[in-house]
């Protein structure tokens, strides 16, 4: 048995096992693993998203009127854009909020649409609630009491419906139901026209999307399609390919005529999204309903963004028919590939709902330049480099890169020293609680395996083959009971998780041989992102207090093969103010510098240098943070 606990393949089995028996949690170094009586860092059961929902519900119940209460629920107390939650509403609920308080995501409500006068005597008493998945639900006529039908965060807010409001609702619902029925028929017709083989290709592609890109959380009325929290209904970590509980797998071999309406719409909508940008576009629908009209809205918003860049102008969809949207999606996909080389695309992430929005960055301004200048100055002070900007420093290093493969300071290689100093400087320059950068430990082993085209070896390398250097601001202790031990343990948890991310991305850069395809992996990221309130996301983010962050992945070319997401720079604030676009642009310059230097180091390795990153293990994080 070979346990993946260290990269050193030359170690004896006895030494390997002895090391494996030791805890790798920094504060427990020197003690046997698995023998602690109890966890050190329990978080409350309602920490993160459940607690956020409860607080949002409390705000809603304390609001002075219905519109104010609805606004608290739509924004989850100011933590997400209201437009996302509006697009999460079922048809009846969308109609209800429109007539009750004039809230709608659609651009087509009559101008100046007025909410109904709720002061009139009620003829129906409805209610509003918040589900544990974060959606607003409304008790409308024909629907039973919410507590019996929904998993609610709290109770309900009673809502009186006067006769005039009911009449408005009926008219609105009739209109919306007819529109939805029309789109369902359109989806079925489009699938029929595409034919069985094309439909099978769509299913295969969408299953691959769900498997290689997470998380997805989408709605079709009451149905939730997700490979994340709650009951999973799509392929992902929980449901393996072919699992019968996967909504997509369950459609294979079943004639489209036997599919439910929601199944047909699901497949069409996901296909349109993927055609417009690849798998990642699906995450831009996270937290919303997945109907043709919702997808049309997203595609049109994307078109307007892309058309803001000089060059090819994409015409609007000729209609809201699926065929016309497919044409638009294809055009967006082509334009996106063009834009990727000329502008900086990035994604804005709203953590509580995992909702992502593609943005096009403006030019780097004074703020971004100042950060790069400050970072460059720190590198000049601490490394044998010169240059006013990261580009100049990198160019200078490229003229004599040998020191990257030689011992430097306290590190075994200059590359490690450079990574550490860049991360350390980032903490200071970006005013972070943590900064980090990840990569592969042995570029020598990688170049050797690449030359041999030994894909099998590369995909069997596990976490110990990767590193992540995590540097906290010492003041970040205040977020962790003022405990240096807790800070060091948290930093190492982040490091280990980032090693996992490197592990997860590497295979996506290799040829799809059977052993690669069989390996669990995600599509490697190619654009940076800035995230808000990610500490509401999942256990790891809750425990590490990952509230505001920037993730800046970079590709590295090694022996002619491009490895997307091979290295990155991540910035994190546990509290305070979020990062902005200028921060992101400067961070992306810094990660680009690390990537360029990693590329130089890989060239040295390819030329025969033994280059291995040995720092950034638990002991290193303990020594630098808690000792």
């Amino acid at each position, binding site marked *: 048995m070979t*346990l993946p606990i260290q990269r050193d393949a030359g170690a004896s089995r006895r030494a390997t096992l002895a090391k494996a028996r030791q805890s*790798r949690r920094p504060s427990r170094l020197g003690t046997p693993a*698995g023998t602690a009586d109890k966890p050190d860092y329990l978080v409350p059961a309602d920490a993160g998203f459940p607690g956020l929902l409860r607080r949002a519900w409390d705000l809603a119940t304390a609001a002075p009127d219905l519109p104010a209460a609805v606004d608290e629920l739509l924004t989850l107390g100011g933590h997400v854009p209201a437009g996302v939650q509006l697009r999460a509403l079922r048809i009846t609920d969308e109609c209800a909020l429109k007539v009750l308080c004039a809230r709608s995501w659609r651009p087509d409500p009559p101008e100046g649409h007025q909410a109904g006068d709720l002061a009139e005597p009620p003829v129906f008493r409805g209610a509003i609630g918040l589900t544990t998945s974060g959606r607003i639900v409304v008790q409308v006529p024909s629907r039973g009491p919410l507590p019996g039908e929904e998993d609610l965060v709290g109770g309900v807010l009673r809502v009186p419906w006067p006769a005039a409001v009911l009449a408005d609702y009926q008219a609105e619902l009739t209109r919306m139901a007819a529109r939805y029925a029309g789109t369902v028929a359109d989806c079925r017709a489009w699938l029929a026209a595409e034919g069985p083989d094309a439909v099978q290709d769509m299913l295969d592609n969408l299953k691959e999307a769900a498997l290689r890109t997470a998380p997805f959380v989408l709605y079709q009325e009451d149905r939730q399609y997700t490979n994340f929290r709650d*009951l999973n209904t799509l392929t992902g970590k929980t449901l393996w390919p072919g699992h019968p509980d996967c909504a997509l797998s369950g459609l294979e071999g079943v004639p489209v005529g036997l599919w439910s309406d929601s199944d047909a719409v699901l497949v069409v909508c996901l296909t349109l999204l993927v055609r417009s940008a690849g798998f990642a576009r699906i995450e831009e629908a996270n937290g919303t309903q997945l109907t043709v009209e919702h997808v049309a809205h997203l595609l049109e918003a994307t078109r307007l963004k892309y058309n803001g860049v000089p060059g090819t102008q994409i015409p609007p969809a000729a209609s809201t028919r699926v065929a016309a949207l497919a044409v638009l999606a294809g055009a967006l996909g082509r334009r996106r590939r063009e834009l990727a080389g000329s502008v900086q695309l990035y994604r804005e992430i709203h953590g509580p709902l995992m909702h992502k929005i593609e943005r096009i960055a403006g030019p780097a301004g004074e703020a971004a330049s100042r950060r790069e200048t400050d970072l460059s100055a720190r590198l000049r002070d601490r490394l044998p480099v010169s240059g006013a900007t990261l580009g100049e420093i990198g160019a200078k290093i490229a003229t004599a890169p040998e020191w990257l493969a030689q011992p430097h300071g306290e590190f075994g290689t200059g590359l490690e020293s450079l990574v550490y100093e860049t991360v350390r400087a980032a903490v200071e320059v970006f005013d972070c609680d943590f900064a980090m950068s990840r990569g592969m430990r042995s570029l020598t082993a990688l170049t050797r395996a690449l030359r041999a085209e030994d894909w099998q070896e590369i995909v069997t390398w596990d*976490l110990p083959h990767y590193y992540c250097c995590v540097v906290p601001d010492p003041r970040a202790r205040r977020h962790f009971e003022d405990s240096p031990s807790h800070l060091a*343990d948290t930093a*190492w*948890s982040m490091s280990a998780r980032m090693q*996992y991310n490197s592990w997860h991305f590497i295979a996506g850069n290799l040829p799809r041989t059977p052993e690669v395809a069989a390996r669990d992996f995600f599509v490697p990221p190619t654009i940076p992102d800035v995230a808000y309130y990610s500490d509401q996301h999942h*256990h790891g983010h809750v425990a590490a207090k990952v509230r505001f962050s920037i993730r800046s992945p970079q590709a590295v070319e090694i022996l002619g093969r491009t490895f997307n997401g091979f290295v990155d720079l991540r910035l994190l604030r546990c509290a305070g103010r979020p990062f902005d676009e200028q921060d992101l642009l400067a961070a992306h310059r810094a990660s680009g510098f690390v990537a360029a230097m990693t590329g130089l180091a890989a060239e040295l390795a390819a030329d025969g240098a033994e280059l291995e990153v040995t720092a950034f293990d638990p002991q290193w994080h303990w020594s630098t943070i808690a000792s």
Partner: protein
Amino acid sequence: MAWAKQTPYAATTGRADRVAQRARHDGWKKPPRRIEASECITCDLCLRNCPPEFGAIFDRGLDVVIVPELCSGCPVCVMVCPVDCIYVDEDWSETDPQMWNHIELTTEDPP
């Protein structure tokens, strides 16, 4: 974790029997282990390394979980866990039927 689940479990009848009976092996003296969700980083290393004859670890939504009826208490998951978040579970409780329906699929031949 799809990759692991595609790997056939050991062809011994022991695991299949335990799944069918939804019960722990009488001869196992050690208590099972459990993963503390507050400390877990969901890297799946434990899942990937749980010996096939046990196949006791699964992804479940946000969590990675050990099914106590299938866990012999062997130390492999503990030895690979990078953050030491796996504890002895003296007070384990029975796995719910919904999870068993999921686990039962792993005893079928792959398509």
